[in-house]
């Protein structure tokens, strides 16, 4: 049972983690990215449609890997809009993000109907790995982490480690963070703030696109123009994680656990025995989000220049 919960938890936590890390790159560069939800939708749509078209012609895992690249590219493309509005046009970043959130589902429904008549895009889930060779046979850890899993889980963990490395150990990361905290300081030492912010938003788009695909694959057999508010949940994870990669990972696991609890409670006799209506369980992750944000909002350490368009002229 525990194994099952952990495996389930990964299905929810990993996309949250990837998308929240995407948000991290954007926000650390100084651009609020509330468009994560919309970018996820676009990423999931592109990736799933790619799978839908190529499935059968290619074996499972390579299709998934290629689909991930497609989702990332689509996410970057749509985030380019946000970057252009927020950085070049100095638009209100919340508004341009919201515009993308409204645009994305409508757009994918429209395109899906154009392409195949119905808006649902079906796919066959042939990506599950029953047991990773060798590692899956390790007692306890094997069933916990290396059975009934997806390659995307390990990609997610990889992205986490790489994100941390990039942000804190490379020149790019140092400059990116400087742009989010004090762009004037970065500019004064010859860093191109606009370029760094573009980089931040584009990375964010790529990761959110991947996150959208990763969210849909284990939990469904078709894509129906929605990622059920996971983009916003990822924003909550980002804030709860205080804009730091490892804390974001912790937050993503926590939310994933809450979500799993609401999804699998019917299989846990003790919880069923309490006789609480199922709707209450379904509310858990969202209520937990509200409560946690209310408490952590105060000690927020958001990047200082976040949300403020950079204007070379202002003092």
């Amino acid at each position: 049972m525990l194994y099952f919960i952990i495996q389930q938890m990964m299905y929810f936590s990993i996309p949250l983690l990837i998308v929240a890390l995407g948000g991290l790159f954007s926000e650390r560069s100084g651009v609020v990215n509330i468009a994560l939800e919309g970018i996820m939708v676009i990423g999931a749509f592109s990736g799933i449609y790619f799978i839908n078209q190529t499935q059968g012609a290619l074996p499972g895992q390579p299709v998934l890997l290629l689909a991930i690249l497609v989702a990332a590219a689509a996410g970057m493309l749509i985030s380019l809009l946000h970057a252009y509005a927020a950085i070049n046009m100095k638009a209100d970043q919340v508004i341009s993000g919201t515009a993308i959130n409204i645009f994305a589902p409508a757009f994918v429904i429209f395109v899906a109907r154009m392409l195949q008549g119905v808006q649902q895009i079906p796919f066959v889930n042939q990506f599950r790995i029953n047991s990773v060779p060798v590692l899956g046979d390790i007692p306890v850890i094997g069933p916990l982490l290396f059975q009934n899993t997806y390659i995307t889980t390990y990609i997610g963990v990889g992205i986490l480690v790489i994100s941390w490395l990039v942000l804190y150990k490379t020149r790019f990361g140092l400059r990116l963070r400087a742009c989010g905290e004090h762009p004037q300081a970065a500019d004064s030492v010859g860093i191109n703030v606009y370029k760094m912010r573009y980089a931040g938003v584009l990375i964010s788009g790529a990761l959110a696109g991947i996150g959208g695909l990763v969210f849909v694959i284990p939990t469904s057999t078709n894509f129906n123009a929605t990622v059920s508010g996971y983009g916003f949940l990822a924003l909550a994870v980002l804030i709860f994680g205080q804009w730091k990669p490892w804390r974001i990972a912790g937050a993503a696991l926590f939310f994933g656990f809450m979500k799993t609890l609401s999804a699998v409670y019917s299989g846990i006799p003790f919880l069923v025995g309490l006789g609480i209506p199922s709707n209450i369980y379904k509310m858990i992750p969202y209520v937990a989000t509200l409560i946690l944000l209310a408490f952590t909002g105060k000690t927020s350490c958001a990047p200082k220049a976040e949300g403020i368009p950079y204007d070379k002229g202002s003092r």
Partner: protein
Amino acid sequence: MSEYVIEMCDIVKEFPGIIANDHITLQLKKGEIHALLGENGAGKSTLMSVLFGMYQPEHGVIKKDGQEVKIKDPNDANRLGIGMVHQHFKLVHNFTVLENIILGVETVKGGLLKMDDARKRVVELSEQYGLSVDPDAIIEDITVGMQQRVEILKMLYRENEILIFDEPTAVLTPQEIEELMKIMKNLAKEGKSILFITHKLNEIKAAADRCTVLRKGKYIGTIDVAPASKEEMSEMMVGRKVSLQVEKSDAACGEKVLEVEGLSVHSKVGGKHLVKDVTFNVRRGEIVCVAGIDGNGQTELVQAITGLMKIDAGKVVLKGEDITNAHIRKRNTSGLGHIPEDRHKHGLVLDYPLAYNMVLQRYFEPQFCNHGFLKFDEIYRYSDALIEKFDVRSGQGSDTIVRSMSGGNQQKAIVAREIDRNPDLLIAVQPTRGLDVGAIEYIHKQLVKERDEGRGILLVSLELDEVMNLSDRILVMYEGEIVAELDPKTVTVQELGLYMAGSGKKEA
């Protein structure tokens, strides 16, 4: 090879409605400390921004070692060895000192940052110039003076030869200023050339070799500092004789306008007494000065009187009326004028035009308001009149966004607004902080004039000169208490200093 490391010849820089630099020439010798002197708005910062590549001049050339160069952005300036300490430091608050120093010129190995070499060099430089900076401290944890040294290290780390300091002393304590002067002299001795923007004559006398004076965007002259007197320099700067001494007659005191009795304010954290059982009064026709070292409760005392802070015990009486718990507007309309300590926080709405700021406490009066609708014509007419009367200079008159104005003119706008309301009691907190000689003289004269017209004035100042020159009575605050009441005619600056440091308390 030219005698000068940097020459700026005949520079012209225009902004909409204003010529900030009108044919200005500046020549910097190697290894000298060269002061750039001028009032607020004289064009000093603009000139330096041109040199640092942040603005492009309309006319004129810049030469480095006799060779003409084009400086299109700060990177170009950097390549030519020009570094700048901005007035507002360009430091990332949650980065370490080391990270701030290397930002933009990081060394990398295999894609990862390589901090060890950088750390070694920073420590070396810090020792060489006596800066004693800890490379691993976080910026927001260190003092302003230390942050400034980080900025200096930033320039040294980039091997800059020409160092520009934009009003470096404005944010420092007297001790830190002394340290900075020492550091600057050290740097010059090591062959660095220093350009030093200021309007403080004392500092020029203390540190600079030569001095170029600007006035209203025009080049006035370049002089050797040693033989020049402060009076001569201030005359060059302002364009007329300036008396550094305030002329005033004896006070003719009338009735009490302000009575403060047993006033106490507790700290919100820890419950410490910030102001402790303070009792005093201010009468019409006198300037009462609250002297003290910064942070001894003056801010809280004033905020308690003006209503910005809640009082824990005691009474405030204005013209015989108890205003201890009155609203701020009630206090304002019953004859209290306040020139606040922090003009950006409590004095002005920075992103409003000047006209709106001029009526901040009066917009609801029938003169400016008709059944809830503002009378903009009237507001602008009034604002124009104030600008004219008090000589507030700005780019676009009443329409100027206040944020874009110089500090001196922002302060003048506040002074104009407060004085024109004809308050019976005028509270002025550090009214001349950060201002140049001309503006200081002007504000001092206004305060004395108000006094002579029978208003009570409560002045809070950290500057001993100002305290001694202006006041009719001195109250010394130390750790939230009034420890002495002194007569400026009989007390010496040294005695006053002792009281401020708290040592007068035991003898009394």
